C-alpha cells in the first residue's frame, strides 16, 4: 500500500469535517513520519478548506513535521524536574553519540532526536523516551549505554 492509499484510509476513518483537521494530520504524521505537500493538498481538498489553513496548522504544531523523521524518535525530557537533574547533559551526549543536532535525523534514517517539555514521569528525572517506553534516572553515560545496547530501537 502506497502513501496515497494509506492517506485515503486515514481520511476515511475520520468524519469529513474541518474540525478533524488536526486529528487527520496527526494520523498521517504517525503513518508517514512526515506530512508531504501532496498529503496537505489531499487533506485540504477532502475537507473543503484552503491549503493555506492546512499549511498553517502543519507549521504551528510541533507534533507535525514537513521533514521525514527517523523510524524511532528519541525524546529527552527537558521539563523543569529533568532540567534540574541534568537533562541538558543527557541531550548533549545523545547528540554526540548520534552525531546529529536536536531535531535532526541520523544518516541511516533510524533515529530522530527531540526534546519534550514534560512526559509526566518527573519522579524519575531525567527521563528519555523512545516510542512508548520511558527510561528514568538517565545520565550521559547511561543514555549512551542504552543507545549502544539498542534499547531505544
Amino acid at each position, binding site marked *: 500500500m502506497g502513501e496515497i492509499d494509506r492517506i485515503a484510509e486515514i481520511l476515511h476513518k475520520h468524519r469529513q469535517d474541518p474540525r478533524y483537521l488536526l486529528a487527520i494530520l496527526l494520523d498521517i504524521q504517525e503513518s508517514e513520519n512526515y506530512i508531504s505537500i501532496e498529503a496537505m493538498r489531499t487533506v485540504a481538498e477532502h475537507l473543503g478548506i484552503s*491549503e493555506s*489553513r492546512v499549511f*498553517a496548522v502543519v*507549521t*504551528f504544531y510541533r507534533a507535525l513535521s514537513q521533514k521525514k523523521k527517523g523510524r524511532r524518535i528519541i525524546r529527552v525530557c527537558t521539563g523543569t524536574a529533568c532540567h534540574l537533574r541534568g537533562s541538558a547533559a543527557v541531550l548533549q551526549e545523545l547528540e554526540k553519540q548520534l552525531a546529529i543536532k536536536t531535531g535532526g535525523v541520523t544518516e541511516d534514517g533510524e533515529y530522530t532526536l527531540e526534546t519534550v517539555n514534560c512526559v509526566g514521569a518527573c519522579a524519575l528525572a531525567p527521563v528519555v523516551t523512545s516510542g512508548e517506553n520511558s527510561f528514568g534516572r538517565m545520565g550521559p553515560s547511561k543514555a549512551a549505554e542504552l543507545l549502544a545496547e539498542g534499547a531505544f530501537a
Partner: protein
Amino acid sequence: MIEITINDIPLKVEKGTTILHAAQANGIDIPTLCNHEGLTLDGNCRLCSVEIEDMGNKKIVASCMFPITRNISVETETERVRRARNTVLQLLVNRNPKAPIIQQLCAKYGVDREERFALEPDLCIRCGRCVRACEAGGTKAIELVGRGFDRHVAPPYELETDACIGCLSCATVCPTGKITYEETPGKRKIWYKEFDVLQCKRCGIYFATKEMLDWAGRPENDRDHCNHCQKYIESVKFLTESQKK
C-alpha cells in the same frame, strides 16, 4: 447609551462601541497598527493600549477590541499607557527599523532603536492585515504560518499557489510596505506567481488579472473593458435605448 469618560471628558456612547471608536469620534488620538476599518479585528499589535478603570480595577486593554458595555473611565496618556506604548514601539523598531510607519511613530513618541537588541531588519510586523484582507476576499491564499518568533506570512508551502488571484488586496492593506509586487505592462508578479493583466480596450489601463475575473465570475467573452468603462458603455447603451423608446 452608556456614560463613560475618556481622559476625564464625559461621553455618551452606544453599547458595544469600542473604546477606539469612541475616542476617534471625539478627536482623541490613539495610535494603531494592526487595526484596519475594512477588516475584522485582531488586536495583536497592542499599540492602541489604554488604561481603564472598570469596577474599581485598573488595567491595560487593547482599545480597538474592547467593547464598552458599562460605565468605565478610560485614560489614554497615563504613565502606564506611555510605558506600554513605548515598549511595543521599542520592540517593533528593534526588528522593523526600516518600516516608515514605525519610524514615524517612534519619532512621535520618542523611541530609539536599541543596538544591543537589534534584530535582523524586517519590514513585516506580523499584524496579519494582509491575511485578513485575503480572507475577506474569500481567496484565502496566504496565512500566518509557523509560530512564535518565526511566525510569518506565506502562501501554502511557501510556493506559488492557485488560490492567489493577484488582486493586491494584501499589498494594499500592508502598513509597512513589506508586501511588494512587480508590475510591468500586462504582467504582475506577487507571491512567487506571475499573472497576465488584461488591458481595457477603451481607456487602455491594465485593470485586472485573468484570475480576478475568473474569481468574480465574469464571462470569458466579456473581458474587454475595465469596470469603469464597462459601466460607461452599459449606461450609454441604456440611455440610447430609452431615448429610442
